[in-house]
């Protein structure tokens, strides 16, 4: 009997160990981390950054790489612009969303469409690192020397259909989100790397209106 219990314990401990990403350990004081993250987020009023997006599809030999620039301004203003190899722009201005594609601008009311609302929430909260306070995700906290790694598992049925887990890599020095990896149930993923990040530089409101 004892042998069986040992075996079961061993199995579960291996299982738990396997869940932790390589090179990372679990954060002990998650409350302190959350408080610190929240406090840092309050200090940030604007963010400007370049990004590189990698789409990994298991059947393709190459990743699809797209690059661009993004701007964020409190409260709830975001400009997400692809520049290579395609030109495509999404801008969120409070409850309005603009999409500029092929020179054509479409304007939407975010509240009129459930999908736009969730895109808005996910994008705005991701760049701020605010997803960890959301009730829609179950969070796990890991760290290594340089980064905190947050693993967020969606709890709502709609999101679970296309998203297995979101990984947020957060720089330990300034609590900035440096990398986001969105993994699909099939294990294909989208990874976004942020670079040349500047915070609290003045950004005019007109950047978030697309004509």
């Amino acid at each position: 009997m004892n042998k069986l219990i040992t075996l079961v314990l061993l199995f579960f401990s291996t299982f738990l160990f396997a869940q932790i990403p390589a090179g990372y350990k679990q954060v002990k004081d998650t409350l302190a981390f959350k408080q610190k993250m929240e406090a840092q987020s309050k200090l940030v009023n604007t963010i400007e950054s370049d990004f590189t997006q990698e789409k990994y599809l298991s059947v393709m030999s190459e990743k699809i790489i797209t690059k661009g620039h993004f701007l964020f301004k409190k409260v709830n203003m975001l400009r997400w612009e692809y520049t290579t190899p395609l030109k495509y722009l999404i801008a969120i201005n409070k409850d309005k969303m603009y999409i500029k594609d092929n020179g054509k601008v479409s304007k939407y009311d975010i509240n009129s469409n459930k999908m736009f609302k969730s895109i808005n929430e996910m994008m705005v909260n991701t760049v701020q690192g605010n997803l960890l306070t959301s009730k829609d995700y179950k969070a796990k906290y890991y760290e290594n020397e340089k980064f905190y790694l947050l693993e967020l598992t969606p709890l709502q049925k709609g999101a679970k259909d296309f998203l297995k887990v979101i990984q947020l890599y957060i720089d330990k020095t300034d609590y900035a989100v440096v990398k986001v990896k969105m993994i699909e149930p099939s294990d294909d993923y989208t990874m976004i790397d942020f670079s040349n990040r500047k915070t609290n530089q003045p950004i005019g409101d007109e950047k978030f209106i697309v004509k």
Partner: protein
Amino acid sequence: MKNLLLSSFIAILFSCCTLGHYGRLTDYNSHSYSEFFKIPKPIFGENFNSFLFKTNIRVYGKDFSGLLVTKQMQPNDYRVIFTTELGMKLFDFEFKDTAFTLHYCVPQFNRPALLKTIQKDIEILLMTKLNADAHSFLIDKKREYAVFKSKDEKYCNYYFTEIKTKNIVKIEHSKRNTVKTTLTLTNYSDNFPSAILIQHHDIKLKIELNLLKK
């Protein structure tokens, strides 16, 4: 009554036009264009390459924009995946010989008639079923296009190769001489079209593909 007369007149007018649509094509039996007297080579079947397109699908007033990637896996096996710009997968199709596999699809696309239509459009473009179908060769009166006519169940697909450039510039998917879908292939560079437009004439569906990378 007036409306009935008018619609009958329009119907007659259109049927006359369509009857004449392929009238300009004659059976090809000359030897001066013998290089066109063969099954066309699939344009996507080049060294197992992948092609990335900026894509817009406009269906009944709704727009889906994103990136479409095609990859030749085996000589007659292609994978076609459509994602949003932000990376969310919308559909994942596989065309192997004459078989089709739906690997994934979001609920917005998961409507049998829409899926079947898009599947057929891509299949015509990939030219995976040409060898299996009954076919014939035609040529237009002006000797500008060599046309490969391939039977596709109740339909016929006409592949128009421009004689001057040897490029497939147009594909028509027709039923009883009425064009249901026109695929226009333009801006050729290195034997590959940079722009492809798939325009349906009987339903409100338009697919635009603009090459980003090959």
